[in-house]
């Protein structure tokens, strides 16, 4: 079929890259945004715009907050079919209480699981969760859509297609294809080192696009490779070949960490009532032990199991902010007496490798430079894919125009939708976030509709304006959507100012970077798209003049 290995690779690269490139584009772009998911959350939920806090005292803050928790009516209704008989009024047998925070979280997420009498699966618990201000325990709105960690992040790994984990399988397949595309790309690229720094914007269209494609692909090659690989590994561990079930399935932050850590710790209640010793003392002891091992001592995750039972125990996990590896260094105490049960042993070399690879992708560390470099890597990947689309179209559109084929036109419209359209949709959800009334029921759903609605409009626009491509010309939708991005970007920042009073001068002078950073990043994006729009207009005018000149010449 192919005359040479290189041709076979080129075929693979072109077609697999084209089909799954649309998915990869979303994975890269929303992945880059997810690096700052908590900061975007702060932007989107103004009442939580406070400084990050360490894990508060259990006795003073957490305990009263946990005691107030009960499952929502929704959770109770959802559980009903899996229970024999009626649901109780209150749930009092606590399976676990847990609190989770990171060095970037000003709010504290609390989770509580309760035993359900007569549940068909006696292991199944009913869950409740809430969000509190860690300074004093006041409940914060828990029904707001966390646009960063609750929407952009799921977009990154599942496209929010939750049905049968379909999105996760599509993204995983794309990651696999990405690895193949990287290998085949390296094979096709004859001059990796000789053209390492090469970008010639002045050269013929095809050449300059290919230069940029190669440049963004090659310089960040280790990033692209390791993120596709580690992404796949995380999927494989959690979804494709899950080792043991985890009740906290939904909590991306915790991942496999909690899994398999219960070794040597009671799995069941003993049925003998018992009290709870001072948890703060246990936390202090855990911090002392970490310190002795030269590890930063912030608590990331605190779990109380089998509350009020003789078998109850308290696990204290470290927030691993000082190294890449995702390690909890869990220390476990007997709940009733506070005596040490066990310290998690150091991982095996293979385990350490896995911790490093997962940690590399999930980024629990405290390192702002590396975070920004990850954003750069992600955006470089997005540029690489976008230029791949443009190259595909540019290479074929004249030929297609002569043959009367619509192929290039369709690909181009889809490319506009996935490149500028995706940015527009992202800004669209932020606009909706600021414009929708605060107390609108199901506000988060409306925000999601705004996202998909904007994206659908961008797709329609790209399709309607795509006719010139079939004649071998450029689609004006690229330029028009660049202008739309600029308008949206300015509106988003202005709306943030108008609705919260947090304009840039205020956030910058306060040094509140989560909000200032989001605003500045959006404005930078808007500026780039204005520059791009001007460039595209100049190019369109040049093309128009050339065409007019050649028609003139033909007539003469």
């Amino acid at each position, binding site marked *: 079929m192919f005359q040479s290995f290189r041709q076979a690779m080129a075929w693979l690269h072109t077609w697999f890259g084209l089909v799954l490139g649309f998915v990869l584009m979303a994975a890269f772009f929303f992945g880059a945004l997810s690096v700052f998911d908590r900061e975007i959350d702060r932007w989107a939920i103004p009442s939580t715009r406070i400084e990050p806090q360490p894990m508060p005292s259990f006795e003073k803050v957490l305990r009263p907050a946990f005691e107030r928790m009960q499952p929502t009516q929704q959770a109770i209704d959802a559980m009903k079919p899996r229970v024999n008989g009626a649901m109780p009024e209150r749930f009092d047998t606590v399976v676990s209480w847990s609190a989770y925070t990171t060095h970037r979280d000003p709010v504290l997420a609390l989770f509580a699981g309760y035993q359900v009498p007569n549940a068909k699966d006696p292991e199944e618990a009913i869950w409740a969760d809430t969000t509190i201000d860690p300074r004093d325990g006041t409940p914060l709105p828990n029904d707001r859509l966390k646009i960063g960690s609750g929407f952009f992040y799921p977009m990154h790994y599942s496209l929010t297609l939750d049905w049968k984990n379909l999105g996760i399988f599509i993204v995983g397949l794309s990651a696999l294809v990405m690895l193949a595309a990287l290998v085949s790309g390296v094979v096709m690229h004859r001059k990796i080192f000789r053209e390492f720094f*090469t970008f010639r914007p002045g050269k013929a269209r095809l050449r300059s696009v290919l230069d940029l494609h190669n440049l963004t692909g090659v*310089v960040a090659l280790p990033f692209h490779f390791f993120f596709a690989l580690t992404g796949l590994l995380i999927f494989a561990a959690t979804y494709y070949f899950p080792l043991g079930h985890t009740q906290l399935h939904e909590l991306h932050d915790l991942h496999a960490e909690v899994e398999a850590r219960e070794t040597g710790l009671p799995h069941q209640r003993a049925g003998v009532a018992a009290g709870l010793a001072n948890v703060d003392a246990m936390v202090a002891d855990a911090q002392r032990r970490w310190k002795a091992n030269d590890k930063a001592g912030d608590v990331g995750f605190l779990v109380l199991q089998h509350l009020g039972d003789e078998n109850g125990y308290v696990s204290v996990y470290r927030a691993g902010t000082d190294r890449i590896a995702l390690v909890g260094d869990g220390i476990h105490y007997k709940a009733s007496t506070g005596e040490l049960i066990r310290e998690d042993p150091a991982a095996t070399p293979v385990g350490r490798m896995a911790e490093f690879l997962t940690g590399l992708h999930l980024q629990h560390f405290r390192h702002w*430079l590396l975070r920004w470099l990850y954003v750069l890597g992600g955006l470089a990947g997005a540029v690489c894919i976008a230029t791949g689309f443009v190259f595909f179209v540019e290479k074929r559109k004249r030929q297609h125009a002569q043959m009367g084929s619509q192929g290039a036109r369709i690909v181009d419209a889809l490319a506009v939708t996935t490149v500028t359209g995706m940015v527009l949709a992202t800004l669209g959800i932020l606009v909706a976030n600021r414009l929708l009334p605060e107390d609108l029921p199901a506000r988060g759903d409306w925000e999601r509709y705004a996202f998909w609605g904007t994206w659908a409009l961008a797709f329609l626009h790209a399709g309607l304006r795509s006719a010139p491509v079939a004649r071998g010309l450029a689609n004006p939708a690229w330029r028009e959507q660049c202008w739309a991005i600029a308008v949206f970007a300015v509106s988003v920042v202005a709306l943030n100012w108008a609705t919260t009073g947090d304009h840039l001068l205020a956030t910058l002078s306060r040094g509140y970077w989560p909000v200032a950073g989001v605003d500045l990043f959006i404005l930078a994006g808007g500026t780039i798209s204005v520059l791009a729009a001007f460039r595209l207009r100049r190019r369109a005018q040049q093309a128009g003049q050339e065409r007019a000149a050649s028609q003139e010449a033909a007539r003469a």
Partner: protein
Amino acid sequence: MPDPASHGSLLSLALIASVAGMGWLALSMQVHAQQAWNRAPSPTALKVLRWMGSAALLAAFVLCLCADHATMAVLVWFMALAGAALTVAFTLSWRPRWLRVLAPWVRA
């Protein structure tokens, strides 16, 4: 981990070393030297630039190691190299003469 101030300066130095190193490596290539100076320096000069480039990238790695835990330093270094390569490539395509700053001893 060093205190925040020295952590910051170590990382800044690492970034500067990566950009300089990538710049020297680019200038050690005929094509790019031509872009910066409109003529190619002598083969020895190119060789010197290549050695300086490699040394600077190595220095950047050592600086990263001083700043962070080794596992983190590797990632910071790799990503800093990517950023530096992009910076140098875009400088070459936009204002190639600016790279002359990196090697003032080479006469244009």
